[in-house]
């Protein structure tokens, strides 16, 4: 992690930035689907709307009147219907307290009908390992960091190559939602080449749950102090969703400055939802995750020597 700080320092010598306002080329909006849902005994929501222009962060126009159904590929009887709770917001409600959405190990088709056009997608729901524990590692102050505590979560990738995960973390109730904090794993490493099936998640992934914030002198502030709390969520995602999130990170995590010399140009991310009209492109993604989570309050007993 330290090398990141140094790159930033070098970059401040040579590169400078300024925010600008600019016009955008006109083009037609697209239909967007947020169909990222969870294997849980709670209501699941799918949102359908049209995209805003790039600088517009207001509520997008929602699309009502759609028929939204998720069906098990191998068992047509296992169907989940999403009813329109508000315009553009389609909700599945569990009928009993133990009614969970979808079954682990199964494949599901999403079928949406809007004004005569059908949109479909396919995904699978995989199991997720539990998070065994969370400990903190101490690192002494130097030119780049103050005395710091880095949280590490311990979980073991499930046996069998090709398990993909998305790890989210909250510090003191606040989600770490910067693009650089998107933390995805292929087995226990960053990619298939990592050859990390069945291992504990590797160190960089374990520590990506920490916030990396800097003070005015560009020195790293300790991610956690005694008394802070952390909450980590480990979600299983389909392999397609893994590549999708990797692409999202490439497109949204812009380091700026000197790093722009090495930045790739903007590219669209392929959705896994398709319209039956071959001339129509949609954006969004369909994925069902199983989740395991663990929260911890940081006390002195939680400090460990971690190599």
């Amino acid at each position, binding site marked *: 992690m330290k090398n990141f700080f140094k790159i930033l320092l070098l970059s401040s010598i040579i590169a400078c930035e300024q925010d600008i306002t600019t016009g*955008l080329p006109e083009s037609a909006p697209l239909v967007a689907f947020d169909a990222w849902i969870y294997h849980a005994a709670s209501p699941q929501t799918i949102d359908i709307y049209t995209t805003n222009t790039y600088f517009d962060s207001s509520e997008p126009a929602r699309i009502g009147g759609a028929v939204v159904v998720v069906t098990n590929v191998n068992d047509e009887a296992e169907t989940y219907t999403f009813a329109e709770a508000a315009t553009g917001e389609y909700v599945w409600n569990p009928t009993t307290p133990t009614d969970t959405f979808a079954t682990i190990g199964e494949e599901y088709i999403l079928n949406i009908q809007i004004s005569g056009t059908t949109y479909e997608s396919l995904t699978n729901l995989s199991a997720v390992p539990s998070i065994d524990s969370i400990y903190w590692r101490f690192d002494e102050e130097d030119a780049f960091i103050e005395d710091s505590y880095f949280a590490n979560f311990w979980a073991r990738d499930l046996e069998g190559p090709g398990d993909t995960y998305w790890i989210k973390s909250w510090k003191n109730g606040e*989600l770490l939602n910067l693009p650089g904090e998107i933390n995805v794993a292929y087995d226990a490493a960053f990619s298939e080449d990592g050859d990390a099936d069945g291992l504990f998640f590797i160190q960089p992934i374990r520590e990506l749950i920490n916030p990396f914030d800097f003070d005015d002198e560009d020195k790293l502030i300790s991610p956690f102090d005694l008394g802070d709390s952390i909450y980590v969520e480990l979600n299983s995602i389909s392999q397609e969703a893994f590549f999708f999130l990797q692409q999202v990170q490439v497109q949204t995590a812009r380091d700026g400055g000197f790093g722009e*010399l090495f930045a790739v140009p903007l590219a669209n991310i392929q959705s896994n939802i398709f319209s039956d009209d071959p*001339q129509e492109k949609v954006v969004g993604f369909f994925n069902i995750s199983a989740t395991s989570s663990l929260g911890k309050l940081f006390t002195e007993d939680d400090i460990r020597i971690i190599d």
Partner: protein
Amino acid sequence: MKRFATLLIVLVSLNAKAQEKFTINGYVKDAANGEALIGATVLVREINGGNITNVYGYYSITVPPGDYTVEYRYIGFLSQTMQISLSDNQRIDIELAEESTQLQEVVVTAEPEDENVSSVEMSVANLDIKTISKIPSFLGEVDIVKSIQLLPGVSTVGEGASGFNVRGGSVGQNLVLLDEAPVYNSSHMLGFFSVFNPDAVKDVKLYKGGIPARFGGRLSSVLDIRMKEGNNKKMEINGGVGTIFSRLAIEGPIKKEKASFIIAGRRSYLDVLARPFTDIFDNGAALYFYDLTTKANYNISDKDRVFLSGYFGRDVFNFDDRQGINWGSKTATFRWNHLFSERLFSNLTFYLSDYDYELAFGENDRDKFEWTSNITTYDIKPEFTYFMNTKNELTFGAEALLYRFSPADALGASDGEIVEFSIPHKRAAEYGIYVGNEQTVSDKLTLQYGTRLSGFKHLGPGSYYTLNDTIPGFRRSPTDVRQADDWETIKSYMNLEPRFSAKYQLSKTSSVKASFNRTAQYIHLVSNTTASNPLDIWTPSTNNIKPQTGLQWAAGYFRNFKDNTYEFSLETYYRRTRNQIDYIDGAELFINELIEGDVLAGAGRAYGLEFYAKKNEGRVNGWVSYTLGRSELKIDGINFLNDLENRSGNWYPARYDQLHNFKATGFYEVSNRVSISANFTYLTGTPTTFPTHRYQIEYLTIPENSANTRNNLRIPDYHRLDLSITILGRAIAKNGWVRKNRDSLVITFYNVYNRKNPFSIYFWQGEDRFAIDEVAETKATQVSILGAFVPSVTYNFKF
């Protein structure tokens, strides 16, 4: 029968004897240091014709026996005239003395004054090292590549970009040669400085079009840089101490007038200077570059001369003693000039070139990542020039290269476990054979024509893949993989490259020229970023990646005014190219064995009008160049707009497309010792891909270009003014003695009005996190690399 045959033979030989011609040949050199003068004119008045010395300073003129007045000329030097009586071949080696100038008129060109009008070469720019030294440059350091960027048709995408663009071609399409050896990355420090040490450079020639048959391997241009041989009369020391780096060049005779050497080195020391002010550099961090250019030559005899040149350079960005990026090249060239006869000049070149880059991250051996990439080239190149007669100069030769590509040798350690993932090495062979002739058809019409036959073989050992066909723009996957044996030909390609140039003299001071050339390029610089950078990868053509080919037509009008004081030209070009490489959205270029699956190929076109006006003499001189040009690509899978089914592409501007390219450079001799120069550059902003919309998935805000366009908008225009003042040291010291040290002080002001020229614009949500019930705000930010006023001082010395 026998008697008839004998009679015929006797008659023929008698006839031949009557028409027998003799050759005047030799070398033209600089009297002060023995350097060969490239492009010197050797004019035989009686036939109103002659020769221009070649890159080794050699000339050869064949005429019938008789009395002749031969004039040797080179601008900035005193001409010499020889009266000769030719009754046999004569070898005349001449040394010309530099003009001692009272009123320090700046030498702006090295060719004969009317070269631009009378030479058949077109689309060629010759820059003399003296001119280059006067142009203000970044941080006071004279730079070859920055100087050629002031010529029409040549550009760059801005500070931070490695390399240069010629007539709308990409950076990887320029053949950059240093004493015949190719240079894969001509920049240090991300384009701020080139790898060529001006203390070691003698001659710089850029071919933008009308490329002669002896050059091949790249599509757009040839930058032919010749090093000095080294003063073969006395020791000479040149150097400079500047703000960012210092240089030292030592040259001298090994054996007076027979052998000499030159060693020139430079090293930057920004990190050394900054050390007292910051502690970033305390634990092994470093930011520097160095280069060492060396050469030795030996005149074995009148007929033989050998040269040995070497270049070693490196750029280092280290974050600490374990982590960082570095890259560099090493080349070694051996050449042998041999005169088979007075009319047959030959040069044999052998070279070995190695270009590599490394990346290392990780604080300790348990968690680290190291990657190296490398391209090694071996080459042999025999070349011949046959000076047939005063109207025909024939060139022919061949070239064979062997490449070894190591795209990635990588090692990752995580929690102590080591994983090696490397992409297998690739081997390839490239060859060419050419023949050409420069023919003076009449005193008005000269033609240069020839053809090159080039070929390429992608060789084993290694795996090679057959890829599936898919909608363009999506990754292609392998459907079959085969193993090739050592040296087995996986795929071979061949191209015929005809070349043609013509010049028609309208009058003594004006001419029109036209040229046509077909070129082929077998290795490709793979780059996905806004500008070329050191991590770009060179990749060979394979069974899935075809060679690039290009056809360029150019025509121009050239005129000199007022006895060659003013030069003017207007040239237009059109180049059509095939198999231009670009990438799918989301391409993985880094350590990807299946990179071929992410590559898309299509067509390119570049066209433009170049205007150039230059004042050669006088206390105020300089030039203005303006290019109006377009460079576009059309690739299926990119910029496919509404065609979602087949994704067939529409023309889109290349990332180095700049409609207006205007440069003005001026020099003013204030006095004997003080001169000022200025240059102003204006470039249209380059295009970039802007998003049009955004969408949310959970808390993620994702950009989208709903129209499927590429390079749909432009960043703001680029313009910059630089100034410099050169103060020459006194020639005579205060006590009356002539000073041995010819020194000077150069003060430069880069980007005088402090404009933050944009390098790129990127779209993001800012650095702050947002609350759980909010969505991210998105914005656009413009990045400038070195968008600041930078003054500097350099002290140069010469003994």
